[in-house]
């Protein structure tokens, strides 16, 4: 029986104006998305490859020089690997820094150079662009805004119009349980929304995958599968909402007004003000504060060690003091940079978790995590870099330890081994994405979305069961 009702609903929908318009709209959006991606992604990849090659060249030239050079100059610039699924969710990637610098040792004077530390660049806000703000047309936008609106347009009259025209009474006169009708209607609407979406998405993927510029591997396809599933779940959310309101309200025009107002409030307007309110609750270290702390600690270290900085002695005591001076300073800067970044990230995390009240933002975050872009991805990149930095430091210490003639004072030329280091042995940074990690971060969001869908569906069921025809 469910099948029968679903089929009827489907035929009704397929012949309607809204189906045609939906197909057109989604196709246009997906095509724009694919063209934009094909235009930009190869450039991104090329930039990344060139930058990484340059950085690796520098690293091996340092390795050729000596172990001391490696300990002093650090691993160089470390780049974030662009995700091939960038077209699914842009996630503010243009704002996110795509590089962390492991280098820039402090130069005290010619010949006296400290050791490297990690330096996190600020968010790159383009202060020079004076054009209008652009929201990228990515899958997240298409699904969060357009598909949700379409889902509402397919369900706002599902029950109320049947009641208005009296067909509902006819249907219930047959021995059909109410939940069958509801499920039938739900499935019918779901399939009729999915058809244009799937069509558009397939054409989009076809365009993207057939060109050689973008390479999608098995994992990327798996991620795409998950993204499509999330899109379906999100569509279910709005279909259920539509059914719920449609069952409660007598006239379909009223039902549409209510739905539109809910949609506008939750999808379009909530995210901005909520984030703004949430960021008020917690505060982060400001750049001015960071500089104030920096100069204070810098003076402390300077007072402690200035006797040794200009000394030319090469006895063990002076060298050890020099080592302590260099490393303490580098550690101080690195720690301060980390504190600064962590406090900023914490504030943003806080604001992000509060904006989850909006289903559109929930979807945005889910898509970002699975597309490997956005804020979570950036935190992952930072983690990767920090892990690599530890590995790199251990490598330098290990190589130095293997030479019995060395004084094992890292960071000072006279205190380190003079043996050659083979460039191939130096650990290289490879930015990786891990699906299981992404899944972990997204699990809560995913569960939340599923919960919303279940609550709304049962709400719709209850409303429909109790309604008088």
């Amino acid at each position: 029986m469910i099948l029968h009702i679903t089929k009827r609903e489907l035929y009704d929908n397929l012949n309607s104006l809204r189906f045609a318009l939906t197909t057109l709209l989604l196709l246009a959006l997906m095509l724009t998305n694919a063209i934009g991606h094909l235009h930009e992604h190869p450039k991104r990849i090329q930039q990344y490859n060139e930058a990484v090659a340059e950085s690796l060249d520098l690293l091996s030239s340092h390795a050729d020089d000596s172990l001391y050079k490696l300990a002093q100059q650090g691993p160089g610039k470390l780049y974030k690997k662009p995700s091939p699924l960038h077209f699914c969710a842009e996630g503010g990637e243009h704002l996110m820094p795509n590089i962390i610098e492991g280098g820039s040792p402090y130069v005290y004077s010619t010949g006296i150079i400290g050791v490297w530390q990690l330096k996190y660049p600020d968010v790159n806000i383009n202060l020079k662009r004076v054009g209008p703000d652009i929201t990228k047309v990515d899958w997240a936008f298409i699904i969060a805004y357009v598909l949700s609106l379409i889902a509402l347009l397919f369900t706002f009259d599902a029950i109320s119009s049947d009641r208005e025209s009296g067909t509902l009474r006819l249907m219930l006169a047959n021995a059909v349980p109410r939940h069958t009708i509801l499920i039938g209607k739900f499935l019918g609407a779901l399939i009729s929304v999915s058809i244009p979406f799937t069509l558009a998405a397939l054409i989009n993927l076809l365009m993207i995958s057939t060109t050689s510029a973008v390479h999608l591997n098995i994992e990327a396809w798996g991620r795409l599968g998950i993204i499509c599933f999330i899109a379906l779940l999100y569509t279910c959310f709005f279909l259920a909402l539509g059914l719920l309101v449609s069952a409660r309200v007598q006239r379909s025009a009223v039902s549409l007004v209510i739905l539109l107002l809910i949609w506008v409030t939750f999808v379009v307007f909530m995210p901005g003000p909520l984030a703004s309110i949430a960021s008020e609750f917690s505060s982060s270290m400001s750049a001015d504060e960071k500089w104030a702390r920096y100069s204070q600690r810098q003076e402390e270290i300077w007072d402690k060690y200035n006797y040794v900085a200009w000394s030319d002695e090469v006895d063990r005591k002076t060298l050890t003091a020099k080592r302590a001076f260099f490393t303490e300073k580098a550690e101080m800067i690195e720690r301060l940079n980390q504190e600064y970044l962590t406090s900023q990230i914490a504030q943003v995390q806080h604001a992000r978790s509060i904006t989850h009240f909006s289903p559109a933002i929930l979807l945005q975050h889910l898509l970002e995590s699975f597309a490997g872009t956005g804020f979570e991805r950036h935190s992952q990149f930072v983690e990767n870099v920090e892990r690599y930095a530890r590995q790199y430091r251990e490598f330098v210490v290990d190589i130095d330890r293997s030479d019995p003639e060395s004084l094992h004072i890292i960071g000072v030329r006279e205190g380190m081994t003079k043996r050659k280091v083979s460039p191939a042995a130096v650990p290289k940074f490879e930015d990786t994405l891990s699906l299981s990690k992404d899944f972990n971060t997204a699990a809560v969001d995913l569960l939340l979305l599923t919960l919303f869908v279940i609550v709304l569906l049962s709400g719709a069921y209850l409303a429909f069961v109790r309604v008088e025809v």
Partner: protein
Amino acid sequence: MLTTLIRRELLDNLMTFRFAAAVLIMLLLVVATTTVLIKDYERRLASYDTAIKKHRQEMLEQTTYSAARLRIDRPPNPLSIFNVGLDKRLGNTLGVNHFFVPTLWDARKHGADNPFLNLFSSIDLVFIFQGILSLLALVFAYDTIAGEREHGTLRLVLTHPVRRGQVLFAKYISGMICLLIPLLMCILLVLIMLTTSASVFLSADDFLRIGGVVFTSFVYLSLFYLIGMLISAATHRTGTALMLAMFVWGFLVLVYPNMILTAIKTEPHPDTQISTYNRIKQIWEEFERDRLQYLANDPVPGEKWDFSLRGKGYTFRGLRHYPSALRYHDITGFHYKTLEAESEPQVPHLQNYHRFLGTQVTNTAERMWLVRKPALDALYTQPAKMEQMLLKFSPVGLYDAATEAWTGTDLNGLQDFFTAIQRYHQAVINYYLDKKIFESRLWFVGAENEIDWDLLPQFSFTRSDIGINAKRAFPDLCLLLMINLVLFVIIFLIFVRSEV
């Protein structure tokens, strides 16, 4: 007769659920966002105040003219609550130096905020009106004609001796009144909140500007109402009309503005930047040649730029280059508190050198500006204007541009501020030349508080007056009005010729 028709329509509309819901939701949203926006404005104002204090302190700490740190901070615009435009996004602090002409593209942000917060979209009142008013207008309009045709009441009305134009006009007027009520209520609420908040000061002109925003909103609203009526007149069933209206809304408001800018790239030619930057570099290399020649020709042996000055303090000299802002210059700074006795004979030579250098640097900066100005326009302003124009194919873009012009947060409004800084820059240079500061001893050595920094010209800026705002908003407003008129004529033609 017209009044009877209007009254009937009005009552019909006012008694509906959609009217109540519209008023309620609009008020809720507007109150919530205004609170957030006022908070946000207060925060920006506070960070502006701290920046001003900090920069003044930094200036007072300097003891020589060559180390002068003149920084101008841009205050937030209180009308950015209505349309934030570029007010929040662009740089808000800018150094004024004699070696380059300051522009919008040299400005930076004073560091008080968490830059990661830029990930969240910022909203303003116009954004709310833009989305929700247009939606409401369509919801009110989609069944005005199609609905009556379906019910058969239209036929009844037309059996009376009324002209079709009158019926149409009555429908338009009554619908607009219904939509104006929530709009005006919102605006009044916002005004109450703004005037009672302690931090926002609005001048009489500002109220007129807000009036301009309200008028533009009204015209925008009317445009969408007319689109709704057009759909209603052209279709026979309300269901079809509703679907069409919703898709038109989705396309115009949601899809088109985002899609067009992704589809059409307005990047300038990549060579513009490189070639201009090279020319600028050349200009400074010429300057460097002249400078070295001067040093070679002067009576002092050796070509050291600091004439081997020794004293308490330090000096620095360096080249600064910012390819993306097309800026390249050389900066020299002396931070001496006192000089050693054996350096004293060098001072007159150094003064002569800086008399030469000061004018040379300002002239070179002037030459750089001549090359830079058109290039910056081509690189940044023209693509931006092109993008704005593309957006204007949707009424949303027109509405946004017009309200931006009223509030003064558009590119022109911000350029006014930076033009004022350029004038100030010129005034400072004139002051330096007048008082012979480049060649004075205080250029490179000075004790604590020897310079009275308050004697320098002071920067002041007043926002352009309302007439200029109106002039800038005029073209877009006119276009909106014209579309209104055209739509009305089309609806009239369709309605007159349609069978009931």
